[in-house]
């Protein structure tokens, strides 16, 4: 928290998510209060089913909470409709996913260009070329995701995530589908880029080692934020 702005960029108040299942209502998340400052890197930790991804979805405005509210870059997400939230995402948010989520019908370069083109940027191509070079994939511009290895695909996804120079980057288990060596290279790259772009990072993982590289760790258990690290069950 040394050289970055100290203002809050994500705030969650009384956040809860309840779904209806065959067995009755189920609270996936409840009573989440959370503030993340600009430039901060935060790891959200927890075992499978603890509600990590649900929290990420709510914070990023991909989903709406059943209770409480989220402020993202000073926008109250619950007051916006889906298109409004999409606009906020387009302006402030980047994503990295466990399953990469590249569009199979676009080349590596086109995948990186996509958010820039959606924002109507004239320099989409040159920016994308630059970013691909930054993740060491200059030679792979015209390859389709199918023709890339998992690590390469995730690097393309990283380049895409940083293309819009988002204020906030949400990463959902970014190494979950990769072997440990490749995973480590991806994480190094992620943190490098994060530093270069001074991005706020919200990283969902179950990997304590990876979490340790973040400035702050938030532990989830059964849909609640818990103070102490949770022992693996």
């Amino acid at each position, binding site marked *: 928290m040394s050289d970055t702005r100290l203002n809050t960029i994500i705030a969650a108040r009384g956040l809860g998510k309840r779904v209806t299942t065959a067995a009755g209502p189920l609270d996936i998340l409840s009573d989440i209060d959370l503030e993340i400052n600009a430039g901060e890197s935060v790891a959200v930790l927890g075992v499978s089913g603890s509600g990590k991804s649900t929290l990420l*979805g709510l914070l990023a405005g*991909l989903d709406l909470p059943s209770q409480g509210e989220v402020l993202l870059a000073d926008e109250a997400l619950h007051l916006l409709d889906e298109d409004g939230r999409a606009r906020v995402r387009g302006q402030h948010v980047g994503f990295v996913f466990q399953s990469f989520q590249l569009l199979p019908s676009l080349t590596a370069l086109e995948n990186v260009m*996509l*958010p820039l083109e959606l924002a*109507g940027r004239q320099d989409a191509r040159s920016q994308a070329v630059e970013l691909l070079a930054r993740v060491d994939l200059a030679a792979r511009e015209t390859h389709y995701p199918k023709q890339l290895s998992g690590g390469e695909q995730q690097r393309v996804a990283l380049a895409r995530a940083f293309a819009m120079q988002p204020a906030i980057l949400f990463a959902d288990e970014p190494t979950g589908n990769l072997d440990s060596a490749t995973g480590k290279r991806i994480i190094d790259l992620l943190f490098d880029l994060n530093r270069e772009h001074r991005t706020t990072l919200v990283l969902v993982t179950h990997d304590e080692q990876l979490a340790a590289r973040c400035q702050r760790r938030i532990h989830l258990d059964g849909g609640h934020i818990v103070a102490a690290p949770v022992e693996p069950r």
Partner: protein
Amino acid sequence: MSRLARWRLALRLLVRDWRAGEQRVLAAAVVIAVAASTAVGFFTDRLSRGMVNQSADFLGADLVLESPRPIDEAWLEQASARDLKVTETLQFASMVVHEDALQLAGVKAVQSDFPLRGELRTAPALYVPDAPVDTAPEAGEAWLAPRLMQRLQVQAGDYVEVGEHRLRVTRALTFEPGQAAQAFGLSPRLLMNMADVAATGVVQPGSRLSYHYLFAGPEAAVDRYRNWLADRITPSHELVGVREGQRAIGSALERAERYLGLATLVAVVLAGVAIAMAARRYSERHFDMSAMLRCLGASQREVLGLFLPQLALVAVLASALGCLVGWAAQYGLLYLLRDLLPVAPSGTRAWPILAGFATGLVTLGGFALPPLLRLRAVSPLRVLRRDLAPLPSQAWLVYGAALIALLLLMWRYTGNWALTLAVLAGAAAMAALLGLLGFALLAIGRLGQRQVGVAWRFGINNLWRRGWGSVAQILAFSLALLAMAVITLVRTDLLDAWRTQLPDDVPNHFAINILPEQLDAVEAFFNAHDVPRSQLYPMVRGRLTTINEQPVQRAVTKEAQADNALNRELNLTWTMQLQEDNRIIAGRWWRPDDRGQPLVSVEAQLAERLGIGMGDELGFRVGAQAFSARVISLRTVEWDSFRPNFYMVFPPGVIDDFATTYMTSFYLDADDKPLLAELVQRFPAVSVLEMDQLIEQVERIFRQVTLAVEYVLVFVLLAGFAVLFAALQSSLDERLYEGALLRALGGSRRQLRAGHLAEFALLGAVAGLVAAFGTELLTWLLYTQVLHLDYSFKWLVWILAPLAGALLVGAAGFHGIRPVLQRSPMLLLREG
């Protein structure tokens, strides 16, 4: 994102998806739908415009007066006085002889200024391009329709005999104004000069002749003359103006358009089903993309803005291609119907293209839009939870859109909402019935699968698992097979029925126009050659004009007003002897003292149609003379017997004084045909109707029309294939995965192939069975309710339809499934 960038991106996505084969089925289905409808559109447009453009041309004049006998010279003088051009033609049926060949022809004798409007087209010989000519045949010349030339095996330069006169054939007559009046006419034309008519000896008192007087001039003068004539003509005259001529052909064309249009519609609907299936798969394959786009900040509108332009591009490109195919395909229709076209087709025009595009857009909009709209509703959360699919499109939206699309298309062809709804309801009921049957057959197959080998089990399982998708394919193919089977059956059965109604030894020829003074000679001729024949009947041509002193048109019901018997001259006869197959069902036959009494015996069906009862007073007109007679009996007649039969029979001594000819029917077997030539050479006025040729001519027309419909049905079959490929594509991922898995588990490529082959062959066979059932049902309804043919079980269809289905669908499906066999299981698992 700017609109331009969005379009660019959409285009790039389209190109990518196209390479991946995503939209090919969609596009192919649109091409089929558009091609089918534009082919018919171009065809009917060119004909109907040909009709409008040539309205005066095809009449050969601005006004035509038809009369069974020469008209008052004063009428013609009146026309000349009004500065109208006048020319005269004489039409009659006559045997035309060349060496041993003879053929009944529709002879038309014309003056050298024929036609007044439009032009004749001729060719110097058979099979060479034709060109307009501005003359008519010179005296001594004859121009023959190509069909007549073929039949008689004559070439330009040969001689033919018409009655007692020899004419030199100089040209092939390819188009003639006035053809329209006998559109779809039976006898091929021979055109000759009026100057030669007398020499033929054909024209005798009582001969069946048709004099046509053609008038042309300024519109106002023609109108005034028409009004002048209208006050003078009798019921035996007929005035045909441009409008009447147009109406007659117009309604024939409209009917043709309706049949072809409905056949087209089946193709369009099936294409729509294929489109809906392909669009659904396309949409599902793009859920992830839509979610990602939403994640990256695209609004719902922007997401649609990426996908809809692709749809629009496919629609436009595929419609354009469809129009092109349709444009080419219309020549097939023109070719198949070439002999029957009432007018020379006009040049192509743009509107069928517009209509084609409209068909493409409506079909695509109605069937593809609802599944595609789901893309808008994909939640961005799907990037985290892959299982999150958008809510399915609401059923009313999907079916509502498709239904509206259907109604619009159907209405275009029927032009009538009641008919549209009736056809739609009938089709829906039929589809539901056949669909259920297909489903039941699948269920039966599933029950039986324990008794069959592994390949068949695999096939049956696959079909059953894809339940309604399989039923849709079965339905598509069964409809195509059914339509073709019904058309073919109706054609052959109708023709067979006509043929079998001509048993051996029953008269198969009619001789008409036998002159009273030749009566003895003709009888002697038949006796000398031992030809079995019926009695010789006298014939007087006259019109029924009044019923109980009311003009017939007013005395009968509205439907009966169009009855042919009221609108032409009837053959009246007299005899003392009741024909053996006639039966009196009311009243009594003649007693000797009825001779000379004004009495008449009326054919029972005609009496019923016109509402004529016993004791009614019927008024007749023969030439300029009128007389009346009281109905004293009603008779049933066996029209099928091919003996001379008459609506009106009088006792001797009532109409004997009118101009009379005689007719008889006789039997000749094929070997004795040369006798006909001798007969017409000795008695040139006599016309011989050969029943086998008449049937052949009707058959020719019928065959051409049904071929044209079958031609359009090819598009239905193609649309069936589109449905198959759409269904294949939507199950391809699953099949690829299963195939890889099976191979990984040790299944051989051969086993996999056999399994798929079994699946598609079975699908086709079931479709064939369903088609056979539908055919049976439909032909039964048609035969018993409409055509009044003897219905028999169509066992051949039950064999051929499943066989054809199994072969066609088996081959096509197997072709579509090749990737499953060709891919290495390793590659698949890596991709999966």
